[in-house]
């Protein structure tokens, strides 16, 4: 859980200085995209608004022409009316030009307006041209329609055969006359059949059957599908809110969103706090304290206890104190038995790779098992097997610690266990960071080999987000670490808590040369803030 939240930063720490173009690219591309979207949206809206304004002016002019206002107009009103009329004239002239009015004629009309100061005559001319053109177009379209109708009729006549004689019985006929009429009709039919070719009859039968089938299908669709859908749609439409109702709703949303916007920043921490407090009360062993690094979580400790054999084997193989591996496992398996653990893991498996791809432009697998190790890190540490296997988890934790501790040559036992506390989180603190600490340029290591952890932690600031999208994650980590550096001092804090808890158990022994004083020193370092009294080993 802890590894996955800081893995990407850790990987970046181990790499050379990032390419400035690459590091600025997400933010710049976001800005460019936002700018392009805003400009395009704005342009489209502007066009729509202009059309709407044009329509409104035209409607108002029409209204005004219908009912003349007798009150005198102010200069402002006159100017506005003139501007509107000119706008209308320009739009009409443009339309006329689109319909074929020559540039010279358009220029002449414009010059007339400029010279005389009146728009009416030129507007009338432009409108007349448009009306004339529209009439011409309509006439052309009507002629074309007629021509097409005639062609269609010709085709239809060619396809249809001569109509079959009727077999109807005269309506007024009595029984005998009706039978006679039927016979006569059959005889006429048979004569007609004899006069037409068998191909024509067959074609006629096919077309009639096809027509009947088409009618049947169309009627069926109309009755069973189209009509019910239309009825339902009309019912739904009648139930949908009207424009006025939407406006009222919009206003209500605006009014309601103001107090919500003010109270939400206050309400959210209260809700989250209440949730954690409830979990605290329900589950007993203080998950809230474990979350903020103020105490241990019993589930992590229990998982370490349950896998003692695997941890001790890994310790022997890698020459790492088993209690250090167990503490690391306890930190990484915090809240390991909560009912939502599987759910949370499933979410992390889905969300983490996508987030990493978006934020860091590289695919990083989520982490698994008691040590929360990712497949990438397993490859880096040269470990094979299933990360969910406790033996593999213990080996991974031992290797994480071993690599970092081995980088600290001539270091004391205290320094080594402090390094182990930070290294248990994997890629957030590695051998590279240890080499930085030992670099004489920084002066953290004194000539006798001991490391001045007070000054090192003073130099460790809270993490800063690398991109806009990274803000939320980093803010959450910093909140959790109470302003300390999440990858170093906070990791030492949670590690020391679990180390102390395991040391109180008879099953685990502290490394040689380490006792209560050293544990207190670690606690002091882990909880120290810049400006506090320096911790003494």
């Amino acid at each position: 859980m802890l590894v996955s939240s800081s893995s990407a930063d850790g990987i970046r720490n181990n790499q050379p200085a990032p390419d400035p173009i690459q590091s600025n690219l997400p933010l710049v591309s976001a800005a460019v995209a936002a700018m392009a979207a805003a400009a395009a949206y704005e342009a489209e809206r502007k066009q729509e608004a202009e059309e709407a304004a044009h329509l409104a002016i035209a409607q108002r002019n029409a209204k005004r022409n219908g009912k003349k206002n007798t009150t005198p107009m102010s200069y402002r009103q006159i100017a506005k009316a003139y501007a509107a009329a000119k706008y209308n004239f320009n739009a009409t002239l443009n339309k006329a030009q689109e319909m074929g009015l020559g540039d010279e004629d358009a220029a002449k009309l414009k010059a007339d307006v400029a010279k005389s100061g009146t728009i009416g005559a030129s507007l009338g001319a432009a409108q007349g041209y448009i009306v004339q053109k529209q009439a011409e177009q309509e006439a052309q379209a009507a002629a074309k329609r007629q021509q097409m109708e005639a062609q269609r009729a010709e085709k239809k006549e060619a396809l249809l055969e001569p109509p079959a004689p009727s077999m109807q019985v005269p309506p007024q006929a009595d029984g005998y006359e009706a039978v006679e009429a039927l016979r006569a009709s059959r005889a006429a039919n048979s004569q007609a059949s004899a006069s037409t070719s068998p191909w024509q009859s067959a074609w006629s039968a096919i077309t009639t059957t096809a027509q009947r089938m088409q009618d049947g299908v169309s009627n069926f669709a109309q009755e069973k599908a189209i009509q019910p859908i239309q009825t339902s749609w009309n019912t739904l439409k009648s139930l949908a809110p009207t424009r006025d109702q939407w406006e009222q709703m919009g206003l209500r949303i605006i009014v309601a969103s103001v107090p919500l916007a003010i109270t939400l920043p206050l309400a959210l921490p209260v809700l989250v706090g209440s949730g954690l407090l409830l979990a605290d009360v329900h589950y007993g062993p203080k998950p809230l304290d474990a979350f903020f690094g103020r105490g241990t979580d019993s589930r992590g400790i229990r998982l370490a206890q349950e896998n003692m054999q695997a941890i001790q084997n890994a310790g022997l193989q890698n020459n790492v104190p088993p209690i250090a591996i167990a503490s690391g496992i306890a930190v990484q398996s915090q809240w390991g038995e909560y009912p939502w653990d599987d759910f949370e893991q499933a979410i992390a498996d889905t969300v983490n790779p996508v987030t990493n791809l978006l934020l860091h432009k590289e695919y990083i697998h989520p982490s698994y098992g008691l040590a929360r190790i990712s497949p990438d890190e397993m490859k880096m540490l040269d470990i094979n097997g299933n990360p969910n296997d406790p033996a593999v988890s213990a080996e991974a934790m031992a290797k994480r610690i071993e690599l970092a501790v081995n980088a600290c040559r001539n270091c004391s036992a205290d320094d080594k266990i402090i390094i182990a506390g930070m290294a248990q989180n994997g890629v957030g603190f590695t051998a590279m960071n240890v080499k930085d600490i030992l670099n004489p340029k920084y002066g953290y290591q004194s000539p006798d080999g001991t490391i001045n952890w007070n000054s090192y932690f003073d130099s460790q600031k809270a993490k800063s987000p690398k991109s806009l999208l990274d803000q939320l994650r980093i803010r959450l980590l910093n909140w959790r670490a109470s302003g300390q550096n999440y990858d170093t001092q906070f990791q030492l804090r949670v590690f020391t808590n679990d180390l102390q808890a395991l040391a109180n158990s008879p099953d685990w022994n502290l490394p040689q040369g380490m006792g209560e004083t050293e544990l207190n020193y670690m606690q002091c370092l882990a909880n120290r803030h810049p400006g506090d009294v320096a911790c003494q080993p």
Partner: protein
Amino acid sequence: MLTVLEKRWPLISILLLIVLLASLLIWHSIARTASIAMLVLGPGMAIVIIIRRQSQFHRASNIDRTAMLHHIFFEVLGLLLAIALAILLSQVAAGVAVPLLGSGLVSTVILMIAVVLLGLGAAWLVKVTWGRWTKAQ
């Protein structure tokens, strides 16, 4: 002042885009600041223009106050939707393109062109979905 700014905004935004691209390729130190300024200025100016246009429309007595608020609310919401979609798409594009193309001059320019097109596409998508829906109301 605002009217001039509004009138010249397309030109100004193109100039700002050029500055931003130049900062990405040449003046790395100002790239972040310029990006944040653009992220604030672009949407901010668009919102100002929307409010101004609707209030002018209202003052010309073409719409009443309720309709003006209604229009502003839905237009601003649509704008923010378009911007959010554009940012999301641009991040996906950057996430996919950088490992494939690297961060050379040509690949950066290609990515920027793609991002501009994605921004335009996002605005169009919002127009044909959100815009059509709000227009129907």
